[in-house]
């Protein structure tokens, strides 16, 4: 039977129910969620897509050929991005493990790479599949290292040409340090802004990861073009002091050591706990909630599996359903799930994501998309949502919209909504009203 707990499990943790899902989740919503934690199976929708290495190698080749890079972006790279976004979205729409999918998307947003940067347009989807997806149930440290050594991240935040000021490479050519990735690792990925690190720490971390780059095609470098490359000639020699600790090991390992130390820092525990809590539990999580999740993080050495389970065990979603507002991505995926449309052509999905201003992999900055209601709920945005929902409802009228509403939002359905839907003048209008209802706009 469809309980409020089943609705909360499906909607707050997953991407909303398909017809029948609430029955399936039944009386053990916690068990349904826990069973998804640790599931690293790859959705069939994502099979057969190209890896990042050949895509980046081709992009680099096209870029250095200097002619026709614009045409390459338009005719090759953008269509690949569009295809990736379509596959990713349909994978979430069709998923039997939607909590797992949401966790993938959460971590992908935490470690944002954006196609606003032309060089990585073709490979942002591959980045998520290679660096994020396999690592969401390991340790935060492993995820951080995987992300920070992924060529797409190195290119997105300019580390591929960051060389130590005293490195061999800098002696030979007029090239030097780039702080971009190091700063964002500290500010956005680990400690969080205002947690006490200094400009000297930014420079130290930047030096620690100098020489982390990408194998460029046709450069007589060993290995597969487009893969991670540690250029020892570009690495800053000597000791570096980050957050009071001295690193002298040298080589690629000292950068990894620094990342692992950052992952173990109490500020990182709090920062990651806060972001998870804001996404899953409440727009403004309480200090107590953050402290509890941070303790799980610290006690388990940043075990993301333990953290995922701790989210399920948090009281907030169960005590306060409908307190969060769906992002456009949430809304689109959940409405398609509600309609059981899992074979939608990519083009339609793409159009909706762009129209509602949350096209995956195009976040405006490395900070990613917001998880706060106020950033998504404005008059114009609401009207655009309503019009899109009205249009999509025209395509999928339900034989009995009242029964269907019960199957999707039944446990939280208010009398006002129930009556309004029952009085709709057509089946498609009834579907649109369910979609526009507070119960469906919220999660």
């Amino acid at each position, binding site marked *: 039977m469809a309980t409020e707990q089943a609705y909360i499990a499906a909607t707050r943790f997953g991407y909303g129910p398909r017809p029948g899902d609430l029955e399936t989740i039944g009386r053990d919503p916690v068990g349904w969620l826990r069973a998804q934690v640790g599931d690293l199976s790859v959705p069939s929708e994502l099979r057969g897509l190209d890896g990042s290495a050949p895509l980046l190698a081709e992009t680099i080749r096209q870029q250095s050929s200097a002619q026709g890079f614009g045409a390459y972006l338009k005719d090759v790279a953008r269509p690949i991005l569009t295809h990736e976004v379509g596959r990713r979205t349909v994978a979430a729409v069709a998923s039997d493990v939607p909590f797992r999918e949401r966790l993938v998307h959460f971590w992908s947003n935490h470690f944002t790479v954006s196609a606003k940067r032309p060089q990585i347009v073709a490979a942002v989807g591959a980045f998520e599949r290679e660096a994020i997806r396999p690592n969401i149930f390991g340790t935060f440290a492993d995820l951080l290292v995987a992300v920070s050594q992924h060529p797409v991240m190195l290119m997105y935040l300019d580390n591929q040409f960051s060389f130590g000021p005293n490195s061999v490479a800098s002696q030979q050519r007029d090239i030097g340090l780039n702080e971009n990735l190091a700063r964002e690792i500290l500010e956005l990925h680990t400690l969080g802004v205002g947690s006490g690190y200094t400009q000297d720490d930014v420079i130290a971390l930047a030096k620690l990861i100098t020489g982390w780059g990408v194998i460029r095609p046709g450069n007589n470098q060993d290995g597969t073009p487009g893969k991670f490359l540690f250029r020892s000639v570009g690495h800053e020699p000597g000791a570096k002091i980050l957050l009071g600790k001295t690193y002298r090991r040298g080589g690629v390992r000292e950068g990894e050591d620094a990342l692992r130390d950052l992952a173990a820092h109490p500020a990182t525990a709090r920062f990651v706990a806060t972001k998870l809590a804001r996404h899953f539990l409440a727009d403004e999580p309480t200090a107590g909630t953050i402290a509890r999740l941070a303790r799980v993080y610290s006690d388990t050495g940043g075990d993301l599996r333990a953290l995922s389970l701790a989210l399920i065990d948090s009281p907030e979603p169960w005590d306060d359903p409908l307190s969060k507002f769906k992002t456009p991505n949430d809304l689109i995926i959940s409405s398609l799930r509600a309609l059981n449309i899992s074979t939608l052509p990519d083009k339609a999905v793409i159009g909706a994501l*762009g129209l509602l201003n949350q096209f995956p992999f195009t976040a405006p900055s490395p900070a990613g998309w917001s998880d706060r209601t106020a950033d998504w709920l404005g008059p114009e945005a609401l009207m655009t949502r309503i019009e899109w929902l009205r249009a*999509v409802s025209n395509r999928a009228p339900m034989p009995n919209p009242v029964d269907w509403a019960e199957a999707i939002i039944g446990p939280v359905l208010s009398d006002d909504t129930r009556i309004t839907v029952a009085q709709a003048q057509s089946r498609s209008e009834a579907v649109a009203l369910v979609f526009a209802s507070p119960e469906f706009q919220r999660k």
Partner: protein
Amino acid sequence: MLTRRQTLQRMTAAAALTVSPAGLRIAFGAVPTDKRLVIVLLRGGMDGLAAVAPYGEARYRRQRGDLALPGPGQAGGVIDLDGQFGLHPALAPLHALYGRGELAVAHAVGIPYRDRSHFDAQNVLENGTALPHSTADGWMNRAIAAMTNGDVPIGLAVGANVPLIMRGDARYTTYAPQVLPVAGADFLARLETMYRQDPVLAKTLAEAMQSKAMKADVLGDSANMGRGQGGGAYFREAFGAAGKLLADRNGPRVAVLDTDGWDTHAFQGASAGALSVQLGNLAGGLIQLQDGLGAAWRDSVIVVVTEFGRTAAINGTKGTDHGTGSVALLLGGAVNGGRVVTPWPGIDTRHLFEGRDLAPATDIRAVLKGVLRDHLGIAEGILEDRVFPGSRAASGMPGLIRA
């Protein structure tokens, strides 16, 4: 740069299953008839007493109150048909057809279902039986099967989706207009009701509607202002396209056109207002359909139907609530028109169904069976057994088609 609305329309158009006219053509020689039949569905329950007003009846003005239309010849008045009934002024474009005998009005018609749920009533109208959930296919599909054995796609569904009336085993094609109906004023009013429970959403919606109205004022952009006007583009495109597709010698023969926006619970207006705009859209669409059909008009019958009518009396919000009997319009060169066909039950309160609605004096299936038999040549027995099972009591009405 594209406006949001253009983007939305392009996007939904791309999403819809559009079919090029070429894809709708049928192999030469396979089309079983030259006759055309179009059913126009008015979802929401059209107020038949507004569309074709019994202005000559003594009780008319008192019963309808503020919704009563002025008499013929007065500003915003009805256009007289026969001294008893008059067309709503927004339907004026159809009056010439009446004069030429190409428009017949079947009044006080209803489906064999007396509860007042839109969904169930629309199911009954489309499945052709007396029960809302009796069949998974529609009567139009079964009629096509009777004409073709189901293997020649002479059916055409125009709209964003395939309505129940066309669904079934017999093959058909679809055409989705580029312009889809938008979230109109009526829809937004329903949202306001739902959002009473959520102050944040209610406030945001109010701001959005204010800004939408303001833009419409400043820009004079009537297309931004809700159901009536917003629907106009849809009507023009959908009806015009249907006419052209049906005109093709090797094209479809039997079509359904889906419209909504007829559920006028509040401020429906009399000579002017929301319902008037929507009736104007319908009249404009029907003329587009006639233009599109061209020479095929003379072989055509268009039947405009709704799931139920509305209360005879005006309600507390200057609208009308769900009722029972309503009106059906029959148009086309093949129609034996220029008349109002009705065993008129009257609108004195004691003659109303349950004291509130125009009584359904004629089963709508009698009208539809008369058309299918005399226009498309489907035998009465097949109509009774297969197309409208259980409709023996409502035998096909004679004389609707020009001899």
